[in-house]
């Protein structure tokens, strides 16, 4: 089966600093791929490169077999790539419902033309992430956990085929994490492929089909979660070299 996303030799330099270095991987249809690594490993940069927020210095991106690395971000959204931001970017002055409606209006395939229909869709996605009761509030009146849910609902309203999640669980408590994990499992059950960055190991271990470990912008390990997490190189990247 053809992978939904192919990344080939992807590199990103920030004024000489190598953030992502010759990275190659694939995301399969309906797969959840976990992307982990210490702070500064280049994880968020990878998501920004795939979503089009940043332009790659080198390398190729193929979405459903089609090159996308020259397309602007909005065209990639139309093709079906949705993302969340680690530093959440809600539309603060809009109601929670309208925040999500923007995704429905402009998402995959150019989105829904009718405002009323888009709002109906938005309501559905708010219920999906358990935020329906806050629909009429302004987005900047939401607390941290609800903002995370909103970020997720906005991305889902695009009806993405590939969802890129950048630390949607950071700052949540155990119960809230379990809820988000359930939501992500529901999303996957609907056939959407997911690339997820997460620091909460318990969650990413139970979610991911495969894990990919980044360190200094390079892939140092890839495979099934249990195997990867016991890889000596991975342990060293996270904990540092043990003194002899």
């Amino acid at each position: 089966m053809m992978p939904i996303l192919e990344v080939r030799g992807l590199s990103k330099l920030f004024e000489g600093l190598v953030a992502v270095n010759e990275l190659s991987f694939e995301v399969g249809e309906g797969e959840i791929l976990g992307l982990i690594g210490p702070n500064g490993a280049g994880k968020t940069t990878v998501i920004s490169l795939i979503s089009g927020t940043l332009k790659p210095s080198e390398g190729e991106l193929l979405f459903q077999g089609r090159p996308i690395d020259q397309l602007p971000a909005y065209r990639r959204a139309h093709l079906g790539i949705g993302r969340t931001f680690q530093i959440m970017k809600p539309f603060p002055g809009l109601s929670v419902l309208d925040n999500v409606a923007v995704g429905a209006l402009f998402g995959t395939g150019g989105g829904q033309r009718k405002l009323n229909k888009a709002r109906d869709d938005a309501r559905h996605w708010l219920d999906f992430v358990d935020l329906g009761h806050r629909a009429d509030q302004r987005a900047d009146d939401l607390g941290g956990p609800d903002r995370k849910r909103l970020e997720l609902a906005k991305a889902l309203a695009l009806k993405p085929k590939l969802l890129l999640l950048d630390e949607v669980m950071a700052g949540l408590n155990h119960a809230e994490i379990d809820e988000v994990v359930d939501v992500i499992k529901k999303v996957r059950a609907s056939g959407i492929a997911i690339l997820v960055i997460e620091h909460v190991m318990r969650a990413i271990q139970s979610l991911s089909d495969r894990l990919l470990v980044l360190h200094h912008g390079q892939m140092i390990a890839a495979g099934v979660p249990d195997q990867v997490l016991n890889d000596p190189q991975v342990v060293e990247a996270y904990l540092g070299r043990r003194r002899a």
Partner: protein
Amino acid sequence: MKRRIAWAAGAVALVLLVLVPWIATPTLIQFGISMLLLATLAQGWNIIGGYTGYACFGNSVFYGLGSYGTAIAMVQWNLPFGVGLAFGAVLAVVFAFLLGLPVLRLRGHYFAIATLALAEVMTAIISNLDIAGRNIGLVLPLLKGDTLFYELSLGLLVLATLTVLWISRSRFGYGLIAIRESEDAAAVMGVNTTLHKVLAFALAAFFSALAGGIHAYWITFIDPESAFDITLNVKMIIMAVFGGPGSILGPVIGAFLLSAISEVLSTQVSTVASLFFGLVIVVAVIFMPRGLADVARRFKQYGLRYFGENVKAHRL
């Protein structure tokens, strides 16, 4: 029900405005024309500044292009006024597209500064064009008919306001607001940000140019300094912000109120009028920084505390 009352009140206000030329004095009608044209400018600014969040300090350029387009068509080519208006509007819209593509890539202060320089540049260019009468200007044919100019200006303001009403309820408008609130997020949600920004800019240019064209024919004389008057930018922005940027009627009400205050002050206390006017604006900015529209929305909920909260929020 509440909605119906609002619509009815709006309709009554509109009928009264239409009737003004038959009940008011000539001076009042002339004041009315200026006020309506300024309100149109404020409403045009509202589209790019209020809805899209790009604080443009150069809309006077579109106003000036509208003035000169109309004047050149009428004086140099002997075309009728309507054709002149259209020509001015086309000039301004084309200019907005050409200019918008590079300038709208800038954000925040950089965008404001880039647009601020436009009027100066355009004044210099026009002053050197023979067809535009160089720095002497152009004299348009005289048409005595303040009623006509008043009704034209009112019609234009209504058209601009209906456009903003449509924007506030359309997919296009949601795109603009998304850009204002967070441009990066808007892009990854599928909003073609460049297209949206340029179209908003062109719409603002269109209405500003028509206002300029009507003003030129009414005043019958234009020169580079008056047509590209940069103080117009400050006026339209203050009016839009006073009334409530990003609202449908805010800029119109802001323009009406501030025009009236300014007029009363300059007739009553002419020498210190601008001082009082400045004071009004400072007080407004401190107590209601988001404009009258926001006061109208939230005053019920907060009461007088609304003003206190605003002062506190800005740590004054």
